[in-house]
C-alpha cells in the first residue's frame, strides 16, 4: 500500500475509533455497573489508539516527503538542531541536507513574480507564489524528489452519500500537513484530557451521586445515579466530530461535523442538566452558534450556486478531475483574477462569480467561525460554557469546539477576499481586547481562563485577517497545548479545593499542590509570551504571538489607516501577561486567604498530574525553534499559495497584505531588497521587542499587585468603581443582548400571542360555533324528516301486518276457501277488465 493510500486510511481509523467507542459505551453503558470504569477505559483506549494512528500517519507522511516540512527554511542557523530536539519529531534528523529547497521539484513551479530570485543567493527569500519555499537555485533541489508532490495534498473520496444532479454529497478527505498536525494535536490533547477526566470525574462513579448545586424544595440536594459512562461517551463523540471536521474534504461535510461538534458541546456543557445554570448555558451555547451557522448556510448556498461544488481540492468525479474551490478561486499563483467586478474562476468552462457574492460567501462562512470560535459579537456563550465539567472546558477551549472556527477560517483562507480579511481582522481585534479586559476583573478561576481563550482566539482571527495565515494557525496549535494545560490545572485546583472556584478564597496553594502550580506556571509563561530578552529562547506562546504581532505591525505599516490592528493586540499582550500572572499569583502564591480551604487542599492523584506534566512539556516546547522550527515548518508547508507573497494595495482591493519577506525585513514596502547590514529593524524584530516589553510590564505589575500585594487591588477597584463594574458586567454584553434581543423578542412574542388569542383563536372559535349550529340544525332535520320517513314506512308495514294477522286463522279449510274465492275473484277481474 502506498503512503498516499495508507495515510487516509490511518487518519480515518483515528477518526472512526472514537465513534466506535461512543457506540459501545452508549449501548453497553446503561447495562454496566454505575461504579465501573470500564467504559471510560474504552474511551481512553479509543482516543489513545487514535493518537497512535495519527502519529503513524504523521511519520509516514514525513518520511514520504523526506521530512521536508520539518527542515528549517530560513536564515536560521540552528533550525535543524532545534528540530531534532523536538519531542515527537526526533526521527527526522536524517535529512537536513536540503534545507532550502523544495518547491521547484514537484511540478508546481510558478513564475516568481519578483524576478530577483536568482539575484541574491542563499539567504534571499523571495516568496514565489508557491508555498513558502525559498527560491535558491542550488543544485540540490532534486533531493526532495518529485514523489513528494503527491503527498502535499491528498484528496479523495471515502463514500458518496448522494448525488442530486451535479451536486455530490460525499464523505471526502483533504489531507495536507495542517490536517495531520491538527490530528496529532487533537488526539494528543484529547488523550491527556481523557486521562485527566478519569480522575476528575471519579465522583460520578456511584449509584447515588449528590449534586450540591441543586437545591430541591425542602432544603434537600438532588440525588441521582452517577453518569460516568455518559460523560465519556459524549467525549468520544466530541473527538469523533472534531476529527471528522478536520479530515473533511468538502465544505458541506465540514458543516455536518460542525453541527455535530455543536451538539456535543451542548451535551457536555449541559452535563449537570439539573442545574438551571448549566442547562441555560448549554442552550445559550447552542443558540449563539445557530446565529453564526445561519451565515454559514448562506455562504454554503452562494458557494453551491456559483461554484457548483463543495470540494476543497481537486477530486476525481467519474474519472475526470474536477477542480476544487481553492483551485477555482485562486488558480496556481494564489491570486484572484478580477474583471469588471467579476472573479474569473479557473477550471473547466468560463465561469465567473460576482466579486460581491464572493465577499458575501466569505463573510457567511466567517459568521459560522464567529459563532464557533466565540468571536465578537457572539462571544458571550463561551464563559457560560464553564458550567460543564472542567475536562470539557479544556477540550472545548483547546482542541475541539473553538479550534474548529479558527481551523475553518484558516482552511477557507483562499476563498476570502481582502475585504473579508479586514472584517476578520477587526472582529478579532475587538474580541481580543474586550475579552482581555474582562479577564482582568474576573475572579472565578475558570472564567479568567475562558476570557483568555476568547482573547487568544481573537489573536488568531486577527492574524488570519492581516494575512498571517501561518501565524494564526501556529497560535492555534500552541494555544491548544497551553490552554488545555491551564484548564486541567485549574480543574486540579478545583478538585483539590473541593469545588471552590473563586480565586479570592485561594492563595498559597503551591505548597500544597506543587505539580499543579508549576505546570500551570509553564502555561502562564507560555500564554504571556515571555522570553529571555535578546534571544528567542522561550516557551511556545512567545513564538506564535510574536508571529502574530509582527504580521500585524507589517500590516499597519502598509495600511497606516488600520493602525489599531497593531496597537490593540500589542496593548492586549500586556493585559494577557497581567491577567494570567494575576491568576497564578492569586491562586498559588502568597499567604492563604481562606485557611479552611487551604487546610483541606491536597494535590491531585497521578492520573490527573501526569497529563499535566505531559501537557506542560508540550506547552513549553512544542514551538521550539520558533518560526523556523519543526511545528512552524509543518504548518508553513500547507500555507495556501500566494499568502507569503503578500498583496499589493489596489488589486483587487485597497488593502495591502504584508509579505513574509517584508515582515522579516528582507524587502521594503516597495518590494526592494534591503541589504543585510542596513541596520534597519525588521517589523518582526520591532514587534517582538515591543510585545516582550509590554508582556514583562504586565507580568511585573501582576507580581506587584498580587504577588507582593503592595497595593490592595480591591482599593483600585473601588477607586475606579465605574470601570470595574462595567468590566465585571462583561461590558454589559449580556444586558445589551437581553435588551436588544431577549426582551424585544418577548415583546414581539407577546404581540404574537395576543394576535393568536384574539384573531386566530377568535376566528377559529367562530368557525367552530358556526359548525356547531349547523350541526344542530342538521340533527333536527335528521331526526324529523329522515328518521320520520323511515319510521313511517316501518310503522305502516307494522300496522298492515297487524291487521292482516286476523286473516291467518290456522283453519285449513278456511285457507282453501280463500284460495278458491281468490281465484274466482281473479278470474272475474280478468274477464271484466282485461283488454280484449
Amino acid at each position, binding site marked *: 500500500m502506498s503512503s498516499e493510500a495508507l495515510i487516509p486510511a490511518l487518519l480515518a481509523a483515528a477518526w472512526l475509533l472514537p465513534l466506535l467507542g461512543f457506540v459501545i459505551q452508549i449501548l453497553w453503558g446503561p447495562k454496566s455497573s454505575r461504579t465501573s470504569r470500564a467504559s471510560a477505559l474504552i474511551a481512553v483506549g479509543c482516543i489513545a489508539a487514535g493518537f497512535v494512528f495519527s502519529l503513524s500517519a504523521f511519520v509516514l507522511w514525513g518520511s514520504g516527503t523526506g521530512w521536508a516540512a520539518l527542515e528549517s527554511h530560513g536564515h536560521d542557523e540552528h533550525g535543524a538542531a532545534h528540530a531534532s530536539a523536538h519531542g515527537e519529531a526526533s526521527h527526522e534528523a536524517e535529512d537536513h541536507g536540503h534545507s532550502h529547497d523544495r518547491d521547484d521539484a514537484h511540478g508546481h513551479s510558478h513564475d516568481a513574480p519578483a524576478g530577483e530570485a536568482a539575484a541574491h543567493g542563499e539567504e534571499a527569500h523571495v516568496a514565489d507564489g508557491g508555498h513558502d519555499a525559498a527560491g535558491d537555485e542550488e543544485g540540490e533541489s532534486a533531493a526532495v524528489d518529485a514523489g513528494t508532490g503527491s503527498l502535499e495534498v491528498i484528496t479523495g473520496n471515502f463514500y458518496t452519500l448522494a448525488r442530486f444532479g451535479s451536486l455530490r454529497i460525499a464523505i471526502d478527505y483533504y489531507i495536507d500537513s495542517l490536517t495531520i498536525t491538527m490530528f496529532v494535536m487533537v488526539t494528543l490533547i484529547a488523550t491527556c484530557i481523557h486521562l485527566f477526566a478519569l480522575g476528575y470525574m471519579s465522583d460520578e462513579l456511584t449509584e447515588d451521586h449528590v449534586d450540591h448545586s441543586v437545591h430541591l424544595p425542602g432544603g434537600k440536594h438532588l440525588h441521582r445515579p452517577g453518569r460516568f459512562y455518559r460523560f465519556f461517551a459524549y467525549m468520544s463523540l466530541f473527538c469523533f466530530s472534531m476529527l471528522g471536521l478536520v479530515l473533511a474534504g468538502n465544505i458541506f461535510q465540514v458543516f455536518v461535523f460542525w453541527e455535530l461538534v455543536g451538539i456535543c458541546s451542548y451535551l457536555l456543557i449541559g452535563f449537570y442538566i439539573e442545574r438551571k445554570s448549566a442547562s441555560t448555558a448549554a442552550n445559550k451555547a447552542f443558540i449563539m452558534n445557530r446565529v453564526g451557522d445561519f451565515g454559514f448556510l448562506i455562504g454554503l448556498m452562494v458557494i453551491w450556486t456559483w461554484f457548483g461544488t463543495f470540494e476543497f481540492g481537486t477530486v476525481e468525479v467519474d474519472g475526470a478531475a474536477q477542480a476544487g474551490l481553492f483551485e477555482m478561486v485562486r488558480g496556481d499563483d494564489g491570486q484572484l483574477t478580477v474583471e469588471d467586478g467579476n472573479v474569473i474562476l479557473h477550471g473547466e468552462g468560463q465561469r465567473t462569480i460576482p466579486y460581491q457574492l464572493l465577499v458575501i460567501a466569505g463573510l457567511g462562512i466567517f459568521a459560522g467561525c464567529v459563532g464557533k470560535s466565540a468571536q465578537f459579537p457572539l462571544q458571550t456563550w463561551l464563559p457560560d460554557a464553564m458550567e460543564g465539567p472542567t475536562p470539557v472546558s479544556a477540550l472545548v477551549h483547546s482542541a475541539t469546539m473553538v479550534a474548529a472556527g479558527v481551523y475553518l477560517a484558516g482552511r477557507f483562507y483562499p476563498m476570502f477576499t481582502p475585504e473579508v480579511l479586514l472584517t476578520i481582522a477587526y472582529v478579532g481585534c475587538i474580541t481580543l481586547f474586550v475579552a482581555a479586559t474582562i479577564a482582568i476583573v474576573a475572579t472565578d478561576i475558570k472564567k479568567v481562563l475562558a476570557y483568555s481563550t476568547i482573547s487568544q482566539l481573537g489573536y488568531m482571527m486577527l492574524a488570519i485577517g492581516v494575512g498571517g495565515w501561518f501565524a494564526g494557525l501556529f497560535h492555534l496549535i500552541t494555544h491548544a497545548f497551553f490552554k488545555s494545560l491551564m484548564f486541567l490545572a485549574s480543574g486540579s485546583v478545583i478538585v483539590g479545593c473541593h469545588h471552590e472556584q473563586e480565586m479570592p478564597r485561594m492563595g498559597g496553594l503551591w505548597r500544597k499542590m506543587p505539580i499543579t502550580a508549576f505546570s500551570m506556571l509553564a502555561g502562564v509563561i507560555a500564554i504571556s509570551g515571555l522570553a529571555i530578552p535578546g534571544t528567542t529562547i522561550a516557551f511556545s506562546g512567545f513564538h506564535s504571538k510574536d508571529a502574530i504581532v509582527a504580521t500585524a505591525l507589517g500590516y499597519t505599516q502598509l495600511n497606516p489607516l488600520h493602525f489599531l490592528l497593531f496597537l490593540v493586540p500589542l496593548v492586549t499582550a500586556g493585559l494577557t501577561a497581567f491577567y494570567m500572572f494575576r491568576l497564578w499569583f492569586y491562586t498559588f502564591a502568597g499567604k492563604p486567604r481562606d485557611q479552611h480551604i487551604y487546610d483541606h487542599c491536597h494535590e491531585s492523584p497521578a492520573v490527573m498530574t501526569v497529563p499535566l506534566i505531559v501537557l506542560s512539556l508540550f506547552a513549553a516546547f512544542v514551538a521550539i525553534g520558533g518560526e523556523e522550527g519543526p511545528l512552524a515548518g509543518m504548518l508553513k508547508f500547507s500555507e495556501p499559495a500566494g499568502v507569503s507573497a503578500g498583496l499589493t494595495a489596489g488589486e483587487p482591493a485597497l488593502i495591502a497584505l504584508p509579505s513574509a519577506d517584508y515582515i522579516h525585513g528582507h524587502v521594503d514596502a516597495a518590494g526592494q531588497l534591503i541589504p543585510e547590514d542596513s541596520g534597519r529593524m525588521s517589523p518582526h524584530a520591532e514587534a517582538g521587542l515591543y510585545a516582550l516589553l509590554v508582556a514583562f510590564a504586565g507580568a511585573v505589575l501582576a507580581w506587584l499587585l498580587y504577588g507582593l500585594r503592595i497595593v490592595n487591588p480591591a482599593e483600585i477597584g473601588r477607586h475606579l468603581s465605574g470601570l470595574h463594574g462595567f468590566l465585571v458586567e462583561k461590558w454589559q454584553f449580556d444586558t445589551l443582548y437581553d435588551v436588544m434581543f431577549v426582551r424585544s423578542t418577548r415583546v414581539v412574542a407577546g404581540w404574537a400571542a395576543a394576535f393568536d388569542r384574539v384573531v386566530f383563536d377568535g376566528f377559529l372559535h367562530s368557525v367552530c360555533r358556526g359548525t356547531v349550529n349547523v350541526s344542530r340544525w342538521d340533527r333536527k332535520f335528521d331526526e324529523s324528516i329522515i328518521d320520520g320517513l323511515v319510521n313511517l314506512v316501518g310503522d305502516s308495514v307494522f300496522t298492515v301486518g297487524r291487521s292482516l294477522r286476523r286473516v291467518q*286463522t*290456522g*283453519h285449513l*279449510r278456511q285457507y*282453501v276457501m280463500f284460495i278458491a274465492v281468490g281465484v274466482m275473484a281473479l278470474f272475474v277481474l280478468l274477464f271484466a277488465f282485461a283488454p280484449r
Partner: protein
Amino acid sequence: MIRLANDPQYRKVLPDMGTIGLEHFLMVGAVLFVAGVVCMATRRNAIGVLMGVELVLNGANINFVAFARYMPLGLDGQVISLFVIVLAAAEAAVALAIALSFYNSHLTVDVDRGDRLQG
C-alpha cells in the same frame, strides 16, 4: 274455450268426430277440479282433504292431456301429467305421514283442530 274450438284457425286441427271434442274434456276436468276444491273446503277429515287434493290434481291432469291431444304441443302435456302423478304420489306419502303424526298427538284427524299456526 268454446270460442277457441269454434275458431276457424283451429277448426282444421280438431278431428271432425261430431260430438266429442276438447270442450268435453275441459268440462270433465273443470267438474273434477271444482269437486276437489269443494271437497277440500268442506271435509273436516284430513283424509277427505287429501282426496280433494287428488281430485284437483287429476282435474288438472285431464286438462294437460286434453290440450296435448288437441293443441300442437307434442308430448309435453302427457309428460307434465306424468310428473304430476309422481308428485301426487310423493305428496300423498308426505301428507299421510303428517296426518298420522297429527293423529298421534291429537287423537283425531280433524283439520279444524290443528289451528296452532294462527296469526
